[in-house]
């Protein structure tokens, strides 16, 4: 019984969320440190991989806030861009970038930043 209890505790303590297929990408912002308002989001990916669609969803870290969604558009080889991503509140943001390749396979990347 005690062994099972310990196993349960270890399992709970060790469990972390599973991530999907990771997206290998570099994410930049213009301006470099976004403030409240619109900012450009540039996503640099491996140009050899052909992505057909890319979305950016921004969530604040507090529950209950409405996410901000934007569709990125291709802006050159291996470069996708959201021209005016709306950081509508100060605070911690989590951007989830989701890309789809030609076969419909999904790749995701999470970027955390603080908007002062």
């Amino acid at each position, binding site marked *: 019984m005690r062994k099972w209890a310990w196993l349960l505790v270890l399992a709970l303590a060790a469990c972390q969320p599973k991530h999907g297929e990771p997206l290998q990408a570099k994410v930049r912002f213009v301006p470099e440190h976004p403030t409240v308002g619109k900012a450009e989001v540039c996503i640099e990916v491996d140009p050899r991989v052909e992505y057909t669609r890319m979305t950016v969803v921004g969530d604040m*870290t507090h529950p209950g806030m409405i996410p901000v969604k934007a569709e990125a558009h291709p802006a050159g080889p291996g470069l996708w861009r959201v021209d005016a991503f709306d950081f509508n509140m100060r605070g911690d943001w989590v951007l989830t970038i989701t890309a789809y390749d030609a076969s419909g396979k999904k790749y995701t990347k999470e970027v955390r930043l603080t908007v002062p």
Partner: protein
Amino acid sequence: MRTFDLLRVPLLGRFLRWRYSRFVLQLPLLLVAFLALYDGFFGRQLAPKNFATVSVWLHYRGFLVLAIAVFGNLFCAACPMMLVRGPTRFAKRFLPQFRWPRRLRNKYFVIALTVLYLFAYEYWDLWASPWLTAWLIVGYFGVAFLVDAFFPEGTFCKYVCPLGNFNFTLSTVSPTQITARDPARCLTCEGKYCVNGRVETAAGRKTAREAGPAEGVRYPGCETRLYVPEIKTNMDCTLCLNCLRACPYDNVALRPRFPGLEWLRARYRLDVVWLGVLLFFAGFMNALGMVPAYYRIAEGLSRLLGTRNEAVLLLVIYALWIGLGAGLTLLVATLADRLSGVRQTAWKAVRYWGTGFFPLAFAMWAGHYAFHFLTGWATIVPVTQQALANLGLPVGEPDWTLAALVPENWLYPLQVGILYLGLLASSYVLFGRARQRDHFLAGGVVFAYFFLLVALALWVLAQPMEMRGTLLLPPGSR
């Protein structure tokens, strides 16, 4: 009005009298707790998209203040943590039993735990972490089990649980209260069963203590040791309705009431009043922690103290704010006493005037929680869908655009309305107490103090939100 009794309402009354009614109320919250644990540990670690954080920090808190305002302390009645009672009754057969230390039979221990909890909430950003929120639930159940296993039933609720005591304090604004239908009947009650419990044995009716382990049908009495005809306040009442089922004379009522009378007539102990004072200032701090001014204070303090250690800065901010609140309250209450010609200790002055903080504390938390609840109430739908989908249930694609209940520009006027109502209720208490001393100005002094606090609170609530987990920005990022 005096004769209306919610326990006599057809169906509702019958349901509440049923011995398993509390279990029926607890079961949904237990399932919510299980789902929160599952999603908190195994779901995506993004607070707005996780059932643990959304259900605990948005809906539980929102529904809690709503229930207190329109009915009573429903969330203590439906508390799933009290379902540890079955296992602890079994464990009690083998474990040594202790009495709760006499020195801790007050609210000071709870005050300390509440401050500790609020510090942890800010320092570890519990609201932003599904994983930590899940551990908080585990910890809460664990502590409830341990305290209940080693100490008399009700000890956890009355002397340990910060959440329960938060509910107790705020439920002084509730429009219902347990009372005796006919107080005269209680005078001739041989067993005071509502507080001592009732056991119907083959040898006749006995209290739980008299019956000991004897066979019989058992109806436990009030776990927080409230004697129904003497109840003048909702403080310490979990609304479990044990009293209703234990009373063999069907003499327990749940009546509507005007809460202002409780604030005027009840003589709260000093520790209870301090809990009310703390909850106001803590509620203020909780709201302040989400606006830019708070971070500017932290940056300034960091430069002043020469440290970027967030624990130190948080401790200093909390100590200063709560210390300032306690100090000012002592000062203003003493001044009001002197003005009304009463010379007593500052502690007694706080006991007399501090009651006015109860409606204000409720308004502060209700105003803050209303904002979060109303801006994101519908997010419970997609997070529940997602959590259930993770369990393999076919629940459809979550719609993450679901969020607000009311237009955003309604929120601040609503918060202003709630705080004004709180101030109005407080002024009723303060001027009522001033009238008892036949000195209007004394009440006016405390009212001016409350007015300033409310003005400050309204200023905080009017600020743009800044939801940050870190107290200080990394150097060069601004």
